């Protein structure tokens, strides 16, 4: 496979070949990162050699059929002209008829096998990309826009599949067919074979080079001018009403026309190389035809060749270029795929440990409804709760956006802490950092005395989980949505957890109870129900340490305050087990039970640690 790739990039004179280092800084030059990211993405396709070989063989059989048909037909016709015994021609006649049929059949097989191997590759690639995304540490995942991510997993992954169909298979076939053609002609006449080889090599180099250049120019034009054009066009469509009322539509249409002509000029630069690629094959055919015809003259008049051989020499050059005609398309596909691979690498981040088949046991995805599988974490035998502590911790999205400064915090085993503060003070950021989902800007978070950065993520997650405000409710059943937190949770445990958070009436009202589908095509849930469903995840998981972000928002005060009290009371085992620690972000200061440690975050990034004051009359007022 790599042989094809390098044969298609003959323009690069560098002989350095394989650059061993897999990881490269994002700042390295385009060409370099493009090449290595392409290699990495092609590896992620995990194409089995045997399937690829089968596809290539079928494709070779297809092209060889028509080449053999042309050769045999030429031999048959010119030999027939010498009026031999008809019986001498029988084999050729049968052969010609058989070849007339075989090409179509092999073509079908070739298309099927090639697409199958490409589609399998895309499935593997998507799976591997997903794993790579899942493995990405820090905040990177939340920074990639959702639409971008889907474009990467969709169209860009597809470009890698197209590389198999349009470049890898045709490239290998072209190499083999060049050998086949030259070896067929060589016994008839060596000079003719030499001319043919020269012509094929020229066609196989010049045309792809020109096509590659055209594709690169187009890609550049798209990158440089398409976005301006698109933005300009969308701007007019989005703001049409206001622009008309303000009388500025024409002005903006002129702006659009300017963007369009910039784009046109950029993209038209690709027209000439692209046309040269198309014309170069008929052009080099002149060489092959002329060489063959002249060689045929010599062979017939002086070399004692048979009429059949002469017929083949004269007629074959026209039928010998089919395989190389696919190469320009292969080269432009290579350019497109390289760009896609660079974008993919950008999305999933620099090289991470080689993905392999995941060995964590888990329930099989039954009928495609299971969301999460492994049941390892959160199993019944509970380890002792470790201590979670922050030391001189500054949390934020990057150095310029520190939200919480220099925090020392100690979440002792079994302790419950409430976090309060105005909106936008960075409470969520703090939860993410304490959970190890976000790198600390300064200081450290420790779990049982070890810095989170030194612990494997699995080990951290076995002890501490975070339930964030914007957590996702999957478009699957209620039961599956709880299994997200713990793979082995039973229906009874689910029912218990839902009762604990006060959702039993809601579940009873659902058409199929726990097996009701939620999400876009099923039952949609209200904000308050969603909150409690997320809380139920924490309940079924019963992790040693649970970090909760606004678990009672969107709930009416009575219900919410009751849940909050049960979460924060270390002696209440109805939601989180006694002995488990929890940190709960809330804005309901008045509902925090007295004696609870409260971390109050101030707008400037400062904070104060206090104990909740005993409250008076208000406490009894909520039933």
């Amino acid at each position, binding site marked *: 496979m790599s042989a094809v790739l390098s044969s298609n990039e003959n323009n690069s004179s560098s002989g350095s070949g394989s650059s061993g280092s897999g990881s490269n800084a994002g700042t390295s030059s385009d060409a370099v990162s493009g090449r290595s990211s392409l290699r990495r993405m092609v590896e992620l396709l995990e194409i089995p050699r045997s399937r690829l070989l089968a596809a290539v063989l079928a494709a070779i059989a297809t092209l060889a059929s028509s080449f053999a048909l042309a050769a045999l037909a030429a031999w048959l016709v010119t030999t027939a002209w010498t009026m031999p015994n008809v019986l001498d021609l029988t084999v050729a006649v049968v052969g010609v008829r058989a070849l007339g049929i075989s090409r179509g*059949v092999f073509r079908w097989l070739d298309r099927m096998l090639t697409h199958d191997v490409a589609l399998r590759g895309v*499935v593997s690639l998507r799976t591997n990309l997903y794993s790579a995304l899942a493995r990405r540490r820090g905040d990177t995942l939340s920074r990639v826009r959702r639409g971008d991510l889907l474009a990467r997993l969709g169209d860009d992954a597809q470009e890698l599949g197209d590389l198999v169909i349009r470049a890898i298979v045709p490239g290998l076939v072209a190499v083999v067919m060049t050998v086949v053609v030259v070896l067929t002609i060589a016994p008839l006449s060596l000079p003719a074979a030499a001319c043919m080889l020269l012509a094929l090599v020229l066609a196989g180099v010049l045309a792809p080079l020109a096509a590659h250049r055209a594709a690169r120019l187009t890609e550049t034009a798209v990158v440089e001018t398409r976005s301006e054009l698109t933005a300009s066009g969308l701007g007019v469509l989005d703001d049409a009403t206001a622009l008309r009322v303000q009388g500025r539509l024409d002005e903006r249409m002129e702006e659009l026309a300017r963007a369009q002509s910039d784009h046109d000029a950029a993209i038209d630069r690709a027209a000439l190389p692209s046309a040269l690629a198309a014309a170069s094959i008929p*052009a080099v055919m002149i060489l092959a035809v002329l060489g063959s015809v002249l060689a045929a003259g010599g062979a017939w008049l002086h070399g004692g060749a048979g009429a059949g051989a002469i017929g083949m020499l004269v007629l074959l050059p026209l039928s010998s270029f089919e395989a190389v005609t696919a190469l320009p398309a292969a080269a432009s596909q290579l350019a497109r795929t390289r760009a896609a691979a660079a974008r993919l690498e950008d999305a999933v981040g620099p090289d991470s440990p080689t993905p392999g088949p995941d060995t964590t046991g888990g329930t099989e995805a039954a009928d495609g409804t299971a969301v999460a599988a492994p049941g390892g974490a959160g199993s019944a035998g509970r380890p002792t709760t470790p201590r979670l502590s922050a030391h001189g911790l500054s949390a934020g999205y990057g150095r310029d956006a520190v939200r919480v400064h220099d925090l020392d915090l100690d979440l002792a085993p079994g302790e419950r802490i409430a976090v309060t503060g105005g909106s936008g003070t960075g409470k969520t950021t703090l939860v993410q950092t304490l959970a190890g989902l976000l790198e600390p800007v300064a200081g450290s978070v420790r779990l049982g005395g070890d810095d989170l950065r030194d612990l494997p993520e699995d080990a951290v997650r076995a002890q501490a989980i975070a339930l964030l405000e914007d957590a996702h409710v999957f478009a699957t059943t209620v039961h599956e949505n709880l299994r997200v937190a713990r793979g082995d949770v039973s229906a009874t445990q689910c029912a218990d957890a839902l009762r604990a958070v006060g959702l039993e009436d809601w579940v009873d009202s659902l058409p199929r109870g726990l097996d009701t589908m939620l999400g876009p095509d099923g039952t949609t849930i209200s904000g308050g129900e969603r909150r409690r469903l997320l809380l139920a995840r924490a309940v079924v998981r019963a992790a040693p340490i649970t970090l909760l972000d606004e678990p009672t928002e969107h709930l009416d005060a009575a219900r919410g305050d009751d849940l909050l009290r049960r979460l924060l009371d270390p002696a209440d085992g109805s939601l989180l087990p006694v002995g488990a620690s929890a940190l709960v972000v809330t804005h309901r200061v008045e509902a925090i039970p007295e004696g609870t440690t409260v971390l109050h975050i101030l707008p400037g990034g400062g904070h104060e640690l206090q104990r909740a004051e005993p409250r008076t009359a208000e406490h009894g007022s909520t039933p």
Partner: protein
Amino acid sequence: MDQATPGTGRHSGERRPPLDPRLLREVAAARRHVVRTTALGLVQSGAVIATALLLARLGADLLVDRRSPLDSPALLAALVVALGVRALAVLVEQRTAHQAATAAIADLRSRLIGHAARLGPRAGAGRGADLTTLATTGLEKLRPYLVGYVPQLLLSATVTPLTLLTILLLDPTSAGIAVITLPLVPLFMILIGRLTVGRSEALLADTRTLWSQMLDLVDGLPTLRALGRERGPEKMVRALGDRHRRSTMGSLRYAFLSSMVLELLGTLCVALVAVAIGLRLVYGDMELAPALAVLVLIPEVYLPLRQVGAQFHASTDGVAAVSAAFDVLGESAPADGTAACPDLRTATLRLDGVGVHSRDGLAPHDADLVVRPGTVHAIAGASGSGKTTAVQVMLGLLVPDEGSARVVAADGTATAIQDLRRESLWSQTMLLPQRPVLPTGSLREVLAEAAPHGSADQNRLDRAARAAGLDRVIAARGWDAPVGRGGSGLSLGERQRLALARALLAPAPLVVLDEPTAHLDGATEDLVLDLVRTLRAEGRTVVLVAHRSRLLDVADEVTQLSPMHVGPDEAAEGAVR
């Protein structure tokens, strides 16, 4: 690529001609492209036929007369010329095809966007994302169509018949074989089309399902990570992908039958002709020269057809894009009126029983509202109740489906808004949409542009900037800070303030503010309320679209709008109208 990618809706139900006549009629670049390609197709046909005849002549001379090709330099030269002309024709054809595609796309895009903008909000609402997709990526599908498909289509209309004619003159028997096998191509295509009908729709539906499930898993990834459960779903991703692969391969199995049939008939015809010629040569029933020429020509009969088949997807996508574009261009924009708008400083705007069809009913429904000059009028209602639509009716951007919209001059003469020359209404109006629409330039230019000519002295600019809370932005960045298209370089709140300052500077007697506090925090909300009061004090009429209570408090009059929802059946009837 034969696999359907998500997001590309392909309407495979309708039959469309492979070359849309509207494209040829309306787009000069496409018309010239077709004429030029046809001419070059004829040149290529000539080159192909000449190559075959010359090669056959040279071969026959050599074998029959034992004359070396070197003894016929004229024939050799002619052969080189024929092959060279073919290469040149391909070069010119491809070069111009790319340029024609670029020109045609540019032409259609500017017409489409310009027309859609003039069609008004209804056209946008009806098509929304489809229209923007068409105007941006959809039209780009014209390139493979015009560069790849159309030339092959035209070649199959020139090369195929001309080579067939030449074969007929050389050897009627071979032409007979070709003529018998050729009609099998469309026959089998129709049969295979029958076989695959419904399969591509099913595949498309399957693709959409896969995609929404995939989306769900991607969206849930941060959640799963926070729970330490991110390493199960990749199995799910693979399972989904495998299911999709199986269904894709299932439909490709039939789709590839068509290419198999094309190849099969092409090579079978070559084989039959070769055998037929061979057998006649054995018995001396035929000359060698025409035999060789026919053998060279017979694959060329099928070549353009095979290429057309290979470019099938380029054709369906291209034809669909062209057809969708002309469907939009075919809609007529609401006509402009002729009456001049009365002076809005004294005239009253009235909506009586106005209803506008929405996706599931009427929004607004039965809206009555009277905007008296010099007052602040708030339009309130839940989201989806048609507040913005009511404003659009009031400004003549939409013609209501029910009821009437009129402007009543100070002397009591009422004119329907749709009869007004829109420009005369709009020049008296300052509209601030939810997302501020700003011209480009420096902060100073953007502000000064709103004021009438010559009146924008620094004093006025300062005052307006202060009133809109823009002074802090100016202090931080200076008057010359650039404002990009769509207000880039500024935050949404800053853009909103800039737009408000412009409203203050503009002389328009009618100011329409659509959710002016949507992107502002509480403190700046006060500023907007003050600004509305300032506008009223200047004697201007203010229409507020709002659902926040504090905005409603400054209004002199509040109109509550409500939509009417109907069931799907009734909605369908409503849509038929």
